[in-house]
């Protein structure tokens, strides 16, 4: 483990930015954190997390997949990809780091999504341990320890120092470049912090939340639960939950007529939308209740079924904070998960 003083952090950022594009959570003018590129004078946000998740780095909201240029009877296919440089994302919380694993299992499974894998290969993740979890946090429900975030490098920030621990070859290589700005140290301060934060985690309002009622093989038991009616009653059918979610991965592919050719692009889609997965026979889920159920069954039952029991929620709490009607996965888990979850 290595450390540097908090004052030196800007020099560390500058050193990283010498070799890579460096992104980190930065407050906008309204005090909301979003991932922005670091430059001299840019300050790392104190916010617990960003409004949007970091999934954009690997799975952006829109991206061009390819172009078609037509001349006479010939169609030329153009590869529109232009990303070939390594980049660093600093300040990713444990929950969001875990979301990359969940996305990997979708996009890196055969057939590999080369757009996604290209960005994953070029991305270096520096995670940061949490010190002040919010009331909306429930990462522990999914076995995530916010004091021990994964990633290529894990970072712990105390009042005066920043501690660095590499977890991968990529991370070790980057930390190597920071030799001159950091010094070898023991893990005492980090262990102290872990202990304190773990104690806070036990006091969180959602500390007792479990996903025991959910998981692989629960489709028949839960699909027709009568509670879906009241849970989905007020759902507006907007896509806020899906778009701020770090693990929602659905997309649509469309062709855009540029006048001179065609650009094939993909964009995030939302199972909350009436046109989601529309086929020639129509949309398979005609009511908002069915669409609402799909989202939660996917995260809590279908995904685990296809991925060795892994849930596709990381408990980041974004949907708890942002749903216009305050309906969310925790309320679903408590209502359908039975009394023991209350």
């Amino acid at each position: 483990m290595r450390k540097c003083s908090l004052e030196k952090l800007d020099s560390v950022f500058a050193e990283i930015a010498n070799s890579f594009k460096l992104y980190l959570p930065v407050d906008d003018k309204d005090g909301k954190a979003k991932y922005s590129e670091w430059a001299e004078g840019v300050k790392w946000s104190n916010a617990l997390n960003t409004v949007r998740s970091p999934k954009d780095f690997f799975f952006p909201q829109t991206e061009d997949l390819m172009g078609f240029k037509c001349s006479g009877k010939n169609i030329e296919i153009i590869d529109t990809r232009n990303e070939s440089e390594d980049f660093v994302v600093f300040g990713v919380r444990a929950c969001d780091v875990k979301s990359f694993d969940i996305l990997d299992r979708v996009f890196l499974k055969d057939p590999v999504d080369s757009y996604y894998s290209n960005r994953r290969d070029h991305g270096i993740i520096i995670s940061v341990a949490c010190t002040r979890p919010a009331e909306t946090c429930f990462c522990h429900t999914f076995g995530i320890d916010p004091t021990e975030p994964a990633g290529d490098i894990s970072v712990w920030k105390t009042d005066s120092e920043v501690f660095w621990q590499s977890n991968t070859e990529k991370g070790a290589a980057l930390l190597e470049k920071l030799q001159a700005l950091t010094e070898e140290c023991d893990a005492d301060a980090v262990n102290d912090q872990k202990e304190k934060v773990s104690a806070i985690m036990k006091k969180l309002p959602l500390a007792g939340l479990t996903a025991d009622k959910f998981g692989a093989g629960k489709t028949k038991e839960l699909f027709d639960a009568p509670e879906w009616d009241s849970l989905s009653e007020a759902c507006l059918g907007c896509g806020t939950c899906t778009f701020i979610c770090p693990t929602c991965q659905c997309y649509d592919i469309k062709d855009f007529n540029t006048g001179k050719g065609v650009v094939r692009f993909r964009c995030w889609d939302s199972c909350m939308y009436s046109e989601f997965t529309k086929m020639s026979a129509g949309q398979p889920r005609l009511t908002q209740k069915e669409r609402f159920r799909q989202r939660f069954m996917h995260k809590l039952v279908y995904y685990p079924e296809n991925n060795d029991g892994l849930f596709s929620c990381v408990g980041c709490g974004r949907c708890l904070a942002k749903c216009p009607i305050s309906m969310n996965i925790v309320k679903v888990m408590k209502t359908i998960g039975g009394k023991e979850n209350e």
Partner: protein
Amino acid sequence: MQKITREQLIDKAVSLLSDGTVECVLGWEKGQFDYDITPAVFNDENELRENFVWNDFCGANFSKYLVSKTRKCNGKMLVFLKPCDTYSFNQLLTEHRFDREKVYAVGIPCEGMADIDKIKAACGDGIISIDASGDKLNVHTLYSDEPISVSAESVFAERCMNCKSKKHVAYDELLGEDGDVIESHRFDEVAEIEAMTPDERFAFWQNELSRCIRCNACRDACPACTCEKCVFDNPNSGVENKAAANSFEEKMFHIIRAFHVAGRCTDCGECSRVCPQHIPLHLLNRKFIKDINSFYGDYQAGAEVGTRAPLVDYTTDDLEPGEVFERGGDNA
């Protein structure tokens, strides 16, 4: 702190349920915390006593829900309406969007609703509970031993800081006292934007709208947006866009929406309340309201049922398009 109590509302709902006036109740349901309240339909006294809530976080405007919920209800549905909600209620009635006979509206006074994001900004994360006393909110957090006290007014939602009316313009029954229409400062920020140069104004909206993630929450919460099928959701419309091809498209979506609701928007502020990216969408609508007021005389959508809005009512005194052009110049 709200003057009317939760118990008064529950008692009213229970008596209307038990004498058969209404079949069900559209109200606010408590959540995990004191602030995450969900609109819900309550069917009996037990449900009400257990889960109904009325506090400083009951911002959701129920008027739009009446369009879909009254269709599912055979008898009457009780709905609680804050003063600003009653304008949306009237506007929807003007547009024949729900059956008035199926609704029993109880007007309830509102002292202003809090914006949880402002409370989080003032008190930090880790909010365990929030209680109101007088004009203060006491916020208990994981990270301070003592509750943090903030004045309710300092954490009002924007629309409540610029509250336009404490008067109910529609109800079958009123609980508590009715208030008055208020001289608000709601057009001040519009005037500031009007005073910008075109480049500044473009930069202002570019910055705001570039944050849009096209979640459509603004549209889906808007009581003036009640099309059964939105043109932007219809693949056959040619303008369906789940994603913006470029930054101009976000502006197009929001500007078209503002045009569509012009003259019908009551300025209820739901669009800005629900925006996960804090885009001040209400300013677009207020610009239209301000212009309509100055071109056609003061007009408040939803103040009465059945009025013809200036934009759909031809008179020989109407503004000529040329007059808008003549206002032109740098600030056009």
